[in-house]
């Protein structure tokens, strides 16, 4: 039951915000914040006291809900939570709160409708993370898309129409391919066993011919690869991230990209173990290439948000690398990277948004020497720039280190090439700091520094990154009961070789 609430509450909060928006501009903000806080409390309760420990053939679940919905077609409302999607849901709610807080003064038009869209996206993301029925998984996958489109198209910046349509077409087209693959799997399983079902736990272990497995896997892979993103199908990302309002950028970078990685871990590898081990060399080559390519393109940007957007391409490459190396260390590193990247890049987008709100530009050539006028923003930006370049002691380092360490055992060349990304990450991060905060203050900017509300958000994000850097064990422990048990996974991969 608690899982249903987790999904429904943001949506209800959003509808409430929409109506309250007609009364006063402040009420929707508070309504949104309260709805997300309730979700947050529910998650904390689950952290302390799991709802139930259910062991299935797939793994250990700490909460589950499984209701019949359309029995004729084998569609169930089946949600379940293990360590992996627990952490991702927690990340979703947390970043949702920061997104609401960072829009507090930025959004001044159609405030109620804005929060409806924001919370609807969050509901969609939580649903995507929790679904164990492929039909409702697809339903939530699409649910994320439309409100996100509105967020960009209505409250975005100059080029918002182009960016929002590009985003929509990329994700919609790839989503349809996934739908075909879902149906394919549904019918093959049905034909094999006579039981037509979309239920994930039953579809696991479906016997497939190698060719069918490869085609179905590719269908899923394309949808997830667009979201992650994997080069060369990442080009929707810089436009969407740059043109979206701050909250939109935070959710895109912090959460939407993670749904792609989550899909790979939850669906692609367990459902298609053989095909994914066949395709793995291609994928981790693309991952290493993406790490370097994203960093190089980021280095050349002059638009602050666009720069941060390209760093996501680079950092998500580590996630992809970790997922397709099929070992415990790299996989856990990848999950940690999802969390750390979500928080640190979210924070960078909030800072970039705050600067844009104050300066009405994202062009770094128009900035410089801001440290003297906004030392707090500068210090926080420095912190997250350091997180982004992988400074030890911060969570992102642990994540990238684990990914590379795990990968090195499997493939020394790819891991070594990917390590070069560490040098490039340093180059663009420091160059960004230089152009925004250091050097002479040529344009004589005199800006308002972060106030208590903004510093509170930042302090929470800093604390998470520090915590994951010096003592990530509690988070890694939660992953101990990851549904896709990495041991069994690597065992099954080994069998095929």
């Amino acid at each position, binding site marked *: 039951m608690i899982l249903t609430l987790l999904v429904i509450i943001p949506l209800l909060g959003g509808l409430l915000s929409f109506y309250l928006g007609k009364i006063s501009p402040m009420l929707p903000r508070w309504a949104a914040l309260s709805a997300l806080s309730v979700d947050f409390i529910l998650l904390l309760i689950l952290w302390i006291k799991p709802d139930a420990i259910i062991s299935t053939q797939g793994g250990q679940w700490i909460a589950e809900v499984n209701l019949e919905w359309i029995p004729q077609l084998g569609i169930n409302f089946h949600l379940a939570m293990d360590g992996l999607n627990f952490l991702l849901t927690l990340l979703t709610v947390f970043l949702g709160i920061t997104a609401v807080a960072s829009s507090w003064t930025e959004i001044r038009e159609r405030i109620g409708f804005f929060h409806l869209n924001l919370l609807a996206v969050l509901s969609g993301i939580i649903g995507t993370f929790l679904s164990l029925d492929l039909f409702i998984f697809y339903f939530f996958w699409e649910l994320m898309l439309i409100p996100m489109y509105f967020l960009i198209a209505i409250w975005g910046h100059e080029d918002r129409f182009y960016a929002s349509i*590009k985003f929509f077409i990329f994700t919609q087209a790839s989503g349809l391919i996934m739908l075909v693959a879902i149906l394919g799997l549904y019918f093959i399983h049905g034909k094999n066993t006579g039981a037509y079902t979309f239920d994930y736990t039953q579809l696991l272990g479906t016997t497939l011919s190698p060719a069918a497995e490869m085609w179905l896997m590719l269908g899923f892979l394309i949808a997830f690869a667009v979201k992650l993103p994997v*080069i*060369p199908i*990442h*080009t929707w990302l*810089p436009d969407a991230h740059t043109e979206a309002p701050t909250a939109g950028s935070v959710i895109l970078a912090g959460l939407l990209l993670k749904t792609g990685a989550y899909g790979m871990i939850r669906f692609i590898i367990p459902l298609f173990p053989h095909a994914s081990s066949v395709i793995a060399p291609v994928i981790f080559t693309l991952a290493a290439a993406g790490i370097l*390519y994203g960093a*190089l*393109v980021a*280095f*050349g*940007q*002059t638009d602050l948000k666009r720069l941060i957007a*390209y760093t996501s391409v680079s950092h998500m490459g580590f996630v992809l690398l970790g997922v397709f190396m099929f070992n*415990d*260390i790299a996989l*856990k590193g990848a999950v940690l990277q999802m969390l750390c990247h979500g928080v640190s890049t979210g924070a960078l987008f909030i800072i970039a948004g705050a600067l844009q709100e104050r300066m009405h530009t994202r062009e770094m050539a128009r900035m410089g*020497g801001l*440290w*003297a006028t906004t030392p707090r923003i500068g*210090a926080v930006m420095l912190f997250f720039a*350091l997180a982004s370049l992988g*400074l*030890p*002691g911060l969570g992102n380092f*642990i994540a990238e*280190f*684990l990914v*590379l*360490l795990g990968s*090195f*055992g499997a493939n*020394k060349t790819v*891991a*070594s090439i990917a*390590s*070069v990304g*560490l*040098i490039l990450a*340093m*180059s663009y991060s*420091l*160059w960004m700091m*230089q152009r925004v*905060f*250091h*050097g*002479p*203050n040529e344009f004589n900017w005199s800006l308002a520094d972060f106030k208590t509300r903004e510093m509170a958000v930042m302090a929470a994000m800093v604390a998470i990154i520090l915590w994951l850097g*010096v*003592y*990530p*064990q509690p988070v*890694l422990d939660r992953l101990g009961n990851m549904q896709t048990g990495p041991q069994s996974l690597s065992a099954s991969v080994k069998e095929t070789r």
Partner: protein
Amino acid sequence: MKSLLWLIPALPLAGFAVLLFSGSRLSNRLAGLIGTASVGLSAIISLLIAIDFISEPPVGNAYTQVLWRWLFIGGFSPEVALRLDALSLTMIMVITVVAFLIHLYSTEFMAEDEGYRRFFSYMNLFVGSMSVLVLADNMLLLYLGWEGVGLCSYLLIGFWYSDSYNGYAARKAFIVTRIGDTALIIGIFLLFTSLGTLQIQELIARASLMWPVNSALAIAASALLLGGALGKSAQLPLQTWLPDAMAGPTPVSALIHAATMVTAGVYLIARTHALFDLAPSIKMLVAVIGAATLLISAFSALAQSDIKRILAYSTISQIGYMFLALGVGAWSSAIFHFMTHAFFKALLFLGAGAVILSLDHEHNIFKMGGLKKELPFTFYVFFAGAASLSALPLVTAGYYSKDLILHDAFTSPSGSPLLWAVGILGAFLTALYTFRLLFIVFFGEPKTEVTSKPGLKIKLPLFVLAVFSITAGFVETTSSLGDIHILSGFLVSSLPPLTKPAEPNASQIEIAGAFAPLAGILIAYLIYYRNPGISESLAGLRFGNTLKSFWFSGWGFDNFYDRFFVRPLFWIVMANRNDFLDKPFLGIASTLKGVNRLLALSQSGKVRWYAFAITMGAVLALCAVILP
């Protein structure tokens, strides 16, 4: 007592946190006090621990303090653990004591600066990170300290951020060292995947058991570790960042870019010396790189005119001596030179800082002169440092440590007369450039007015360091000069002594080692004191001028890297700033638009066209039906 070990890094880190979060509520006076006291307490604790360690050596001559388990996945479980043994104890004592003196000095030196609190918070963070680096029990924690000091170096070089050049110098330092660091971290991956642990002692034990001498893995691992050491310690070919690092405040140059951080590479190799013993070819490479670096940068130092850049090249050169010592297996000699160098080079930088401050931030030595009269105290302490750097025989610490390295370079089984000869030439050049500096700055005609004189908080650290620069060498002397082996005897539990055959020419080597510096000082005296015209007429020659500008530019390394690495990279980045991978998608979009425009033409609104189209369609349909 030993259980207080964790406080050594924790106190400066706490100081950093307090200074960071207090904001402007803290007065400068209090901020300076917190910054200095936290490091001072660390120094006192390390002295107490040293006394305890020496009077009651722990089992196995090492004490490990596990603070917490960092993380645990499968077989990978690094701990946050500190390890105290003779090597780390020597390092930590030198680091905390020198750091304390430099902090004390900074309270006066930085007094006028508006970033006073920020300065002390970064400096405290540095001392904390450096302590973690040398006390780390495993490679991952060592890497944390390693990157932490790199960060502080970046922050402090770029401390005066409003000047874009400082930012450039800071980035250059961080990025160039990161190239080495990346080699190091790949080395760490290699060590873990092939040996299954990152705990340093265990690592070395397993490597010695599992890897035969000259095995590919041993060579690869030690080469990668060497890569890290080269970046951090500014050795060839990654030395180019250090001269530019002088953009930071002078106490920073003294602490980070002379006494402590730049010797981290020396520490790393000494710490993992057993791995290098398994790879004699890499060990030889260490010696050759050290020898080449010490010579190249000594020549560069000779051509500089900025007082801090002279000292920077000198630092690169002296670390070259340490690498030479490491390369011939004289581990404890390298640590000995690290120690004396930390004292005399910190002294020289702080002395240079006192001069710079007195002359209202003048850096050019040719605009100084005759300062002996105006700043007598500064002159005498600077003279002590210069004598020690030049290895003035018998009376200076620098003599004993450098002489030992030269001796080892000749007599060690892996040494050679050539390495020794390079070292001797370097010693000659060192004396030459050092006394060139001394004569030009302190003698001759005064050229710039002295605007202020150093106060007590500057004088006291200078005095203490001057005493150390003279006396710290007596802990280790050769057989002909008393045969004292306090330091190497103490270090023997961490660093095995050099097994060298009896050397018949020992006394001749020593005499040559003593005369090279004297010759350098004499020539400096003749050229720069007696006949200042000579150097100008030498530089006036076409050949002399070319050579001088070649040396001045640091042998053209910057130019080379700029042309072959930096600019091509920038070119690629700039050419692809619009992300060529987006082109196919834009192509699809414009194709669709084109088709759309074409089809839109048919919607012309003209009835006869529509009638024509309907007729033609009907005809075609009929044909399709009638024709089989």
